[in-house]
């Protein structure tokens, strides 16, 4: 049980001038499940490896339970890690894989036996304890990797995309198992993924990174409802939010033939350095299809994706002379046909961002 603090921690790889992780500030509470998410190359794995002690901290510091561990080797940090490709010891049985760390700590034999058996029971691995990793399926190997971390009873769990090698169904299943396990053990967990669904479903809080810079840390709900900038707005949510940069009028944004009214303060903030433009975003589900005369934005339908309960409608609309792509969610039982013209109207106030900085504007 411990807190984890990144204090302006940076990592600059040798031979590169640009930091892979740039002055990361992050406070993770005791028992929290924090998910680091971002596109590939955003520095999320590097951040995790810095915490593990597998990468140097070039500037700043990392603290576990208030103690600076920046210069300690991995074994002195009391952390356990689950690797993306599991990294099991191929020549050891499942039992020995899990017991290895305990043996190194000179844990009494009976204690090792007890803890491994417990973890095996928790992960449904009892009957595989005598097998070698090569005789296991991908899902079983993943559980052994989890077990190896659990038996350690460490201060912090680190997980580096542990589900990315599983098939889709198993991934969803294991996702909920890991979340339940973490809730039960109550161990502080830092989890890295590139999958925003995983991030939203598993994390108590989610941290979005891009190009080594922290974009936003928040609960999944807030992350979805109030993205801090255009990048987070586009990254979180599937299909992605419709984000368009349009003309800024005196009373609000002008989305083709559709006016989006904004408060005076919002207009002022949006206008700062933005050259008369504003960025408007609305999620696919926040759009209503209206009749022809109801003042909606007209869109030609290109593609309809039927998902049973819902359908996603992809199409093009004319915005100030440029054709722009839009996606909206509709009732799966009443879908327009390809080539139809439909009329869109945002149901709620759209997300507004400064067109120059990409920062969110509230109001």
């Amino acid at each position, binding site marked *: 049980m411990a807190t984890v603090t990144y204090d302006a921690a940076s990592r600059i790889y040798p031979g590169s001038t640009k930091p892979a992780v740039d002055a990361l500030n992050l406070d993770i509470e005791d028992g929290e499940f924090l998910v680091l998410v971002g596109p590939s190359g955003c520095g999320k794995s590097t951040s995790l490896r810095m915490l*593990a*002690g*597998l990468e140097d901290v070039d500037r700043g510091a990392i603290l576990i339970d208030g103690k600076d561990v920046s210069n300690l*080797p*991995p*074994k002195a940090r009391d*952390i*356990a*890690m689950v*690797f*993306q*490709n*599991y*990294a*099991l*010891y*191929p*020549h050891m049985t499942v039992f020995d894989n899990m017991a*290895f*760390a305990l043996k*190194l*700590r000179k844990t009494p034999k009976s204690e090792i036996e007890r803890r491994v058996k417990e973890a095996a029971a928790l992960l449904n691995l009892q009957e595989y304890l005598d097998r*070698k*990793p*090569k*005789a*296991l399926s*991908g899902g079983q*190997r993943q559980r052994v990797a989890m077990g*190896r971390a659990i038996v*350690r009873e460490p201060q912090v769990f680190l997980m580096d995309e542990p589900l990315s*090698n599983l098939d889709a169904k198993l991934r969803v299943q294991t996702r909920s198992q890991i979340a339940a396990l973490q809730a039960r053990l109550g161990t502080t967990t830092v989890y890295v993924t590139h999958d925003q669904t995983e991030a939203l479903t598993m994390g108590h809080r989610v941290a979005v990174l891009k190009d080594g810079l922290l974009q936003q840390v928040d609960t999944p709900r807030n992350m979805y409802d109030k993205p801090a900038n255009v990048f987070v707005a586009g990254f979180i949510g599937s299909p992605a939010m419709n984000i368009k940069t349009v003309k800024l009028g005196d009373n609000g944004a002008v989305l083709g033939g559709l006016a989006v009214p904004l408060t005076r303060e919002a207009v002022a903030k949006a206008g700062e350095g933005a050259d008369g433009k504003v960025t408007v975003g609305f999620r696919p589900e926040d759009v209503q299809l209206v009749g022809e005369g109801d003042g909606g934005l007209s869109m030609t339908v290109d593609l309809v994706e039927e998902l049973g309960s819902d359908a996603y409608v992809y199409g093009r609309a004319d915005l100030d002379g440029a054709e722009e792509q839009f996606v909206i969610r509709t009732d799966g039982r009443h879908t327009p046909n390809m080539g139809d013209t439909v009329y869109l109207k945002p149901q709620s106030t759209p997300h507004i961002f400064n067109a120059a900085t990409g920062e969110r504007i509230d109001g």
Partner: protein
Amino acid sequence: MTQTAVTEPTGTPPSAGVKHRGVGDRSLTFDVIAHVLLILWSLLVVLPLLWVFVSSFKTTQEVLGSPLTLPHHLNLNNYATAWNDSGVGPAFINSVIVVGFSLVIVMVLGAMCSYVLARFRFFGNRFIYYLMLAGLTFPVFLAIVPLFSILKNFGLLNTLAGLVVTYVAFALPFTVFFLHAFFKRLPYDVYEAAQVDGAGEWRTFFQVMLPMARPGLASVAIFNFLGLWNQFLLPTVLKPDNSVLTQAMAQFQSQAGYAVDFGALFAAVVITVAPVLVVYIIFQRQLRGSVVAGAVK
């Protein structure tokens, strides 16, 4: 391939059928030729060995009189003669001692050296590696005279220990060269997992990395064993009193002149060859398959 040629359905277009049958015929011919060659090759290798083994139970008269028949009665006199009277016995034991010690030392040193060169970045890494490779290109007979002087100065000339040291130096470059490539390919994640689990560098090497390198170690061990077991030049110069097996064999053969005891000679050959076969059988299981299977993904 032969199967598809035979069961070719008649309904296929003629052009496709002809083309396919052509391929099938060619591969059938190829298969036949390949198998005939392989069988011939196997016979070439196995038959002399078998003949030597059978002949080692015969008397000289039998060997010369009826070379292709089985021995009249099974007797082990030839082995006793070869072992006791011709000096093959003590030489065999010396060979086992020298090659055994050399092999253990060269494998331990070679594995450690190649592991460090393959996986740690430090100043001079490349330089040491290329120095090792240079040792590989250096013909050993060019170093014979200086080697003689060096061992003499150390007081190791004509001792088994001196031979062991020389064998180790002789076999190390290839061992490092081969294992370097092997250690480079081992997954880094497993190393990191061991670090996080709390293993130090030594323990990681001996308990995690070394077991994963087992197929590579086995291949090099076999190669080194063969090379050192059959070594003749080095012992002739550095241990001149005929005390390892190759020397004893050479002497046995040459001193007999026209009165060769062929039965005993063949027995001595069997004694020489047997350990090689035993070592190969022990290690060849390790060669098959990859030990790393199941480590990652």
